[in-house]
């Protein structure tokens, strides 16, 4: 176990070194918020992958496939295909027309204060939910991995929180980017290695491997059962399973293009063309990774087994336990350290996007009407916000404790991103008549719609005593996307039509359209 600790410490040392280096170089808002816009296509592509592939991907999907087979793999598919929405619809216009945040584009044509305020609330909501899920996961994981050492859940949560605060407060976007790049490279190499080792256990024969996948043995209700794990329907069961699966798909493929911590990455590159190539780089990495979840998940199902995983830390431990089963303790330590790095890189990305939105949208543009009173104030506010965000996330994660069911928080983050952010982004760029009321209504409807539907759904309500509310669920689906995304679009359309014509918004449409499509007037990379 101490080897895991040594690898953790090595990763921490390297990333703190980078943070120190970045802190020396970075000065000014452009450097702090957008890494000087000098990140190259491959670097940003790898960083997007590192920002995106969270604990939910690496540990969560491996666990879902290990326990429910094929249905878990459905997440993998959606999480890659989602990048087509980013590539075709959002990345380039956003890079061309914005500066630091998603709200830059949303507020471009509109009355900026209400739109920015709502966009910032939506950003903070998505980031906070997502971050709490990561922090609780990190705490549970680290305390489990380091069982036998002195590290407890609370210490692990505080440690992760403090590290992310240090990266973001001192290193800004440059340090965050490099933490994400290193993590992505580690995660990819670990996954490739683990996949090869799994296949090796089957004599490098895919047909042997899949044959085993079709005969997975585990104990259910005290009885041994043999299941075909390639068969759909082990998790998403009738009567609502099919609809839930479709609803999940809606949130995944439209939510990614509304995740603020992913969107801000496109401000770190010099121009829209680089943003485009960086999405392609990200798609190559993310796609390869999710295809390999086949070996991680099914490998854990066949080589480790549900019963053993349940007794040794539960679904989230599937990938580390698989590493132990195929290559012993050293590899277990390596994979565990990667899981730790994975969480850190994601929480750093979330923290910087949340604090950028608070400083740039709420502080400078809403409270002080677009005027930075002192030079450097925005960066200073962002640093303080990062500290506060980190402290709040630590406190909430400790309050919830290691056993909290937090998977719904990630579902919620994707649902809010798809239902509140995406409709307003799309209409801002592509619909001339769209106006301030439409943007505000779209954000409010999408945000409230997804939160309410999650809270009256089976994640929160249930009659088995394990749920927050002891009542049969009012809304039958775990994933609200299929209803909340149309609610978001409907809100945006209704607001626009009822809000009356807004001439300035329509006049500025030409300006936004020219900027978004040509890059004329776009923010440029900073010189050294």
């Amino acid at each position, binding site marked *: 176990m101490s080897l895991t600790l040594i690898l953790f410490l090595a990763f921490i040392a390297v990333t703190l070194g980078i943070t120190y280096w970045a802190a020396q170089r970075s000065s000014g808002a452009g450097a702090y918020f957008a890494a000087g816009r000098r990140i190259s296509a491959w670097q940003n592509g790898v960083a997007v992958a590192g920002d995106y592939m969270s604990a939910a991907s690496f540990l969560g999907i491996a666990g879902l496939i290990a326990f429910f087979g094929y249905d878990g793999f459905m997440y993998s598919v959606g999480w890659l*295909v989602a990048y*087509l929405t980013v590539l075709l619809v959002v990345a380039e216009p956003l890079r061309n027309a914005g500066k630091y945040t998603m709200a830059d584009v949303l507020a471009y044509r509109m009355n900026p204060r209400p739109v920015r305020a709502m966009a910032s609330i939506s950003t903070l909501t998505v980031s906070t939910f997502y971050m709490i899920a990561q922090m609780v996961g990190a705490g549970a994981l680290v305390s489990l991995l380091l069982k036998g050492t002195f590290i407890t859940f609370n210490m692990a949560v505080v440690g992760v929180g403090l590290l992310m605060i240090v990266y973001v407060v001192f290193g800004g976007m440059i340090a965050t980017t490099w933490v994400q790049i290193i993590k992505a490279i580690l995660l990819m190499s670990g996954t490739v290695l683990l996949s090869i080792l799994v296949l090796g256990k089957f004599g490098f024969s895919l047909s042997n*491997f899949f044959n085993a996948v079709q005969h997975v043995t585990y104990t259910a209700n005290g009885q041994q059962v043999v299941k075909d794990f390639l068969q*759909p329907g082990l998790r998403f069961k009738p009567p609502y399973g*099919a609809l839930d699966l479709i609803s999940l798909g809606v949130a995944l493929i439209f939510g990614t293009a509304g995740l603020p911590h992913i969107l801000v990455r496109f401000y770190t590159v010099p121009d829209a063309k680089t943003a485009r190539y960086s999405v392609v780089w990200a798609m190559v990495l993310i*796609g390869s990774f999710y295809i390999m979840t086949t070996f991680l998940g099914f490998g854990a199902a066949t080589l480790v087994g549900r019963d053993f995983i349940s007794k040794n830390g539960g679904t989230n431990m599937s990938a580390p336990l698989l590493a132990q089963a195929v290559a012993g303790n050293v590899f277990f330590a390596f994979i565990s350290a990667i899981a730790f790095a994975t969480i850190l890189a994601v929480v750093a990305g979330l923290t910087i996007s949340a604090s950028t939105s608070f400083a740039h949208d709420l502080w400078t543009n809403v409270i002080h009407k677009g005027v930075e009173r002192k030079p450097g104030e925005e960066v200073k506010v962002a640093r303080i916000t990062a500290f506060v965000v980190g402290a709040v996330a630590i406190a909430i994660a400790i309050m919830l404790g290691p056993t909290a069911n937090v998977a719904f928080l990630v579902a919620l983050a994707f649902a809010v991103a798809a239902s509140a952010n995406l409709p307003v982004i799309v209409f801002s760029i592509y619909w001339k008549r769209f106006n301030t009321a439409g943007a505000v209504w779209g954000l409010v409807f999408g945000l409230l719609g997804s939160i309410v539907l999650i809270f009256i759904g089976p994640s929160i309500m249930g009659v088995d005593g394990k749920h927050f509310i002891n009542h049969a669920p009012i809304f039958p689906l775990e994933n609200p996307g299929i209803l909340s995304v149309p609610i978001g679009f409907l809100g945006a359309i209704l607001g626009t039509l009822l809000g009356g014509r807004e001439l300035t918004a329509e006049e500025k449409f030409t300006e936004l359209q020219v900027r978004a499509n040509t890059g004329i007037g776009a923010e*440029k990379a900073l010189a050294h």
Partner: protein
Amino acid sequence: MAPDAKAPVAVPGKSEIPTKPSADVWDHVADMDEFKLLLIAKSEFVIPAVIVFVVYYFLLPISVGYFPQFMDTRIGPVNLAYLFALSQFFVAWLIAALYVRGARKFDDFGKRISENLEKHDAFKGGR
């Protein structure tokens, strides 16, 4: 680049402060044939591409959700459901590759628009 690229006009990027082109620049660009052609070329690619990938993607949860028995049909070592899911990755990569190829044309339009704009601004600046 045009020889007058260093003229103090709407050629952003020469300084750390981005130039704010004046309002009539946007209308001028919007009126250019190249810009209209760019918008047409983009929507001719992006709209069908979005429809294709959204339809192709949702066929997966619909088919495995409503026809799990049929999707469990054996094909080689795996089944139809797994192959269909796997195909999603390759279709996504293919659409991305086609887009990158198509987008070179968009970049060409963009370049011509900037060149035209420099002439326009030089003209304005000269008088």
